[in-house]
């Protein structure tokens, strides 16, 4: 393909990925790698590099808006980033050893999980837990703004959250994704943070985690300018316009559509991986 054709195809695909990703809350990073691998016949290692850079861009774009709103718990983010960034470094080492078909199968499996997990998101708003010793030691308990004033919450099960974050960091580097679904699972379901706090805190962590592996990938030569440029620009424009339209669109129908799309992509990644067609 000529450079023009590559850029046009990748840019339009990334635009749609960013748009659907921000509307569905699943993130655009999930379908960038399949887009490049299945759509443009790019080696999966290049695809992972380009996707990671797009993940950093969307995370920064979203968190520059959230910094002052008081939702994210920065202490929780920083503490858990020691796990995600080290996990990311481990992920880089594993990715360099793994063959393209194996990576493709693993990617498909994670997509399957994300597709199913998207149906039972949203935790409860009940946060009446007793203070946890470890969380108190690390001064993690905080409060968040609600309509009826600041509401306190007690962070739970830090060690389990830490472990899941380590895995999330590894998968982020290994597959070039934000691992947002897994991060929210750890914050929301395991550590019992309020859902809004989990979402914004996870967003802050996604950018930092992706940076830990992106630096090394750049130096390893995984980041190609011709592929990365249309991915980054497409995803960021798509996700910003998605965020604008969010209040006017029925997201539930869209969520099902996107989950269905991801399911189909997952099947193809696994099938092609198993038959060595990647």
């Amino acid at each position: 393909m000529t450079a023009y054709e590559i850029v046009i195809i990748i840019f339009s695909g990334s635009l749609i990925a960013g748009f659907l990703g921000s509307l569905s809350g699943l993130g655009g990073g999930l379908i960038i790698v399949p887009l490049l691998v299945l759509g443009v016949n790019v080696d999966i290692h290049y695809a992972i590099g380009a996707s990671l850079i797009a993940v950093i861009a969307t995370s920064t774009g979203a968190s520059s808006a959230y910094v002052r709103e008081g939702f994210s718990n920065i202490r929780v983010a920083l503490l858990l980033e020691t796990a995600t960034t080290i996990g990311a470094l481990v992920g880089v080492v594993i990715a360099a050893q793994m063959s393209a078909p194996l990576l493709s199968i693993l990617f498909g499996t994670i997509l399957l999980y994300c597709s199913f997990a998207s149906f039972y998101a949203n935790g409860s708003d009940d946060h009446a837990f007793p203070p946890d010793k470890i969380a108190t030691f690390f001064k993690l308990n905080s409060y968040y703004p609600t309509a009826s004033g600041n509401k306190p919450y007690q962070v739970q099960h830090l060690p389990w959250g830490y472990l899941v974050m380590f895995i999330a960091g590894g998968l982020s580097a290994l597959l070039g994704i934000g691992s947002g679904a897994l991060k929210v699972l750890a914050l929301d379901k395991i550590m019992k943070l309020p859902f809004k706090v989990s979402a914004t805190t996870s967003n802050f962590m996604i950018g930092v985690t992706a940076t830990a592996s992106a630096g090394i990938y750049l130096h390893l030569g995984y980041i190609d300018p011709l592929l990365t440029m249309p991915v980054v620009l497409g995803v960021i424009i798509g996700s910003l316009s998605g965020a604008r339209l969010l209040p006017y669109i029925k997201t539930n129908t869209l969520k099902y559509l996107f989950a269905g799309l991801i399911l189909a992509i997952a099947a193809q990644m696994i099938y092609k991986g198993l038959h060595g067609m990647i």
Partner: protein
Amino acid sequence: MKEPKIVILETIVGNVLRVGLTLALVVTLIGGVLFLWQHGDQIYDYHLFSGEPFFLKDTQVIIQRAFQGSTPAIIQLGVLLLIATPVIRVFACLIIYLYQRDYMYVLIAAMVLSILLFSLSWHG
């Protein structure tokens, strides 16, 4: 309640992130347009992984080549700017905790920062 100085610092951080992101995207776009102008009709194949040439993977060389006008290096410079924004964010956290004399979190932020700097300065 948050102290006014912290609020000011957070506003600065928010602005730095926005400016950094915008700058990164503009540089990437300029590099991309110029690249297509020069090499738009060239055929590229990414089916097999061979890795980028040295001048597109070493931080110092990327910056050098970008200022000499190499269009792929200009795109990589945009990528470097993007990678730098979360690093600045963590650094800002460190400063905020230092100001609050919360030394446990100064240490934790320093740990995260050193992992990021290790990754950015890593050489094959």
